């Protein structure tokens, strides 16, 4: 029998809905992120049983990685690398890979495909937001992805034949980290800020719009409803896109070439490639980050999946060398990385970017120098 004063319907839903409409970021987190985070963690447990027959961790070593590490530490590693790198506009791989090798002691070739699992899943945290915000242009992404599909199957062969030993591999990672450190430092200089006028103007317009949206009680992220990245011209030679009153033209062979080279390097190391692609696209084309992600996010996803296929299928078939990733290891790291990348993208505008870039630049620079120096001299401590 129905209660006349309370039918039982919507008794809790109404205050909950009004609370969530007042907290759009929390609403977005519960709707988009929580299912993904829980799903990837569950997939990690499932993969553990499927690949090893048990769940490795702090007591029992991960069989392929050959290391004991508690699951919370893997999730934590994904979280902090994903968070810090998202704030400076990159993916977690380039930080989590050296951490896996030097702190967790995962130094076999399998660390590269395992890292690719994380870099494949990492961008999904931000993907829905970009798709909803129309920060999306598959024509721009297409040619970079074609380059990635051509280049990333080559990288694993370089990794196995020339960078098999951890010492030279770390030296190459060291060079990359040092380059990244210089890039982060350059981004904080007045010269760079003056040079990138287009990004600055775009950011000023964007910030003004954000303030207006915040004043209306909307989420402190996302783009205006009329924002879209449209294709103006599409041919085998040239691609022209337009966004928010701006136009940008690209040479299609150049886009494929950039994707190809970044694809080879990134898949050989086992990272997403954002560390190379972002500076290249900013330097050559002066694209603002809000537009750049339309190309880089699909690129990282495609590169990671083709790189993974090469490590797990092509390479063993052609050479007989087994380089299986530790699926559960990668999935547990990805659980934290998805949340970290999302949190980083939401809190980015409150962080003093200059100090953060200086701090990350100093850390990556120091680690980079140590890795390269370790190739020439042996240290009394293990790095």
């Amino acid at each position, binding site marked *: 029998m129905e209660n006349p004063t309370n039918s039982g319907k919507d008794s809790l839903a109404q205050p909950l809905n009004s609370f969530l409409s007042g907290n759009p970021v929390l609403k977005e987190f519960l709707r988009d992120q929580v299912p993904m985070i829980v799903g990837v963690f569950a997939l990690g447990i499932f993969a553990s049983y499927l690949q090893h027959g048990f769940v490795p961790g702090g007591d029992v070593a991960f069989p392929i990685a050959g290391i004991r590490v508690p699951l919370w530490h893997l999730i*934590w590693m994904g979280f*902090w690398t994903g*968070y*810090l790198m998202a704030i400076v506009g990159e993916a977690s791989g380039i930080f989590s890979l050296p951490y896996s090798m030097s*702190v967790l*002691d995962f130094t076999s070739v399998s660390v590269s495909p395992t890292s690719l699992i994380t870099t494949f899943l990492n961008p999904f945290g931000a993907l829905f937001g970009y798709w909803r915000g129309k920060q999306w242009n598959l024509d721009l992404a297409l040619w970079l992805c074609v380059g990635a599909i051509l280049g990333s199957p080559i990288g694993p062969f370089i990794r196995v034949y020339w960078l098999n030993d951890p010492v030279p591999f770390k030296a190459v990672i060291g060079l990359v980290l040092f380059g990244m450190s210089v890039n982060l430092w350059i981004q904080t200089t007045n010269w760079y800020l003056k040079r990138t006028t287009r990004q600055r103007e775009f950011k000023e317009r964007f910030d003004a719009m954000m303030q207006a949206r915040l004043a209306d009680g909307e989420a402190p992220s996302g783009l205006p409803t009329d924002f879209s990245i449209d294709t103006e011209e599409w041919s085998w030679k040239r691609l022209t896109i337009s966004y928010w009153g701006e136009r940008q033209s690209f040479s299609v062979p150049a886009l494929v070439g950039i994707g190809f080279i970044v694809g080879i390097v990134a898949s050989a190391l086992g990272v997403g490639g954002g560390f190379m692609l972002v500076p290249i696209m900013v330097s050559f084309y002066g694209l603002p980050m809000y537009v750049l992600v339309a190309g880089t996010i699909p690129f990282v996803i495609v590169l990671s999946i083709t790189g993974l296929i090469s490590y797990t299928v092509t390479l063993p078939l052609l050479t007989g060398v087994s380089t299986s990733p530790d699926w559960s290891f990668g999935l547990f790291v990805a659980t934290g990385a998805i949340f970290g990348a999302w949190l980083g993208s939401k*809190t980015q505008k409150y*962080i*003093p970017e200059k100090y*953060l870039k200086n701090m990350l630049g100093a850390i990556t620079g120091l680690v980079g120098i140590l890795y390269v120096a370790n190739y020439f001299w042996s240290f009394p401590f293990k790095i």
Partner: protein
Amino acid sequence: MERLKNQGRKFITYLPFLIAVLAFLVATYHIVFYR
């Protein structure tokens, strides 16, 4: 509520630096007890 949000935004400013310190401590803990 508004005061709480303002406090939260101030805290967020220091969050990356706090996380970096915590990451260093956790890494040290792992090296000492697990390697």
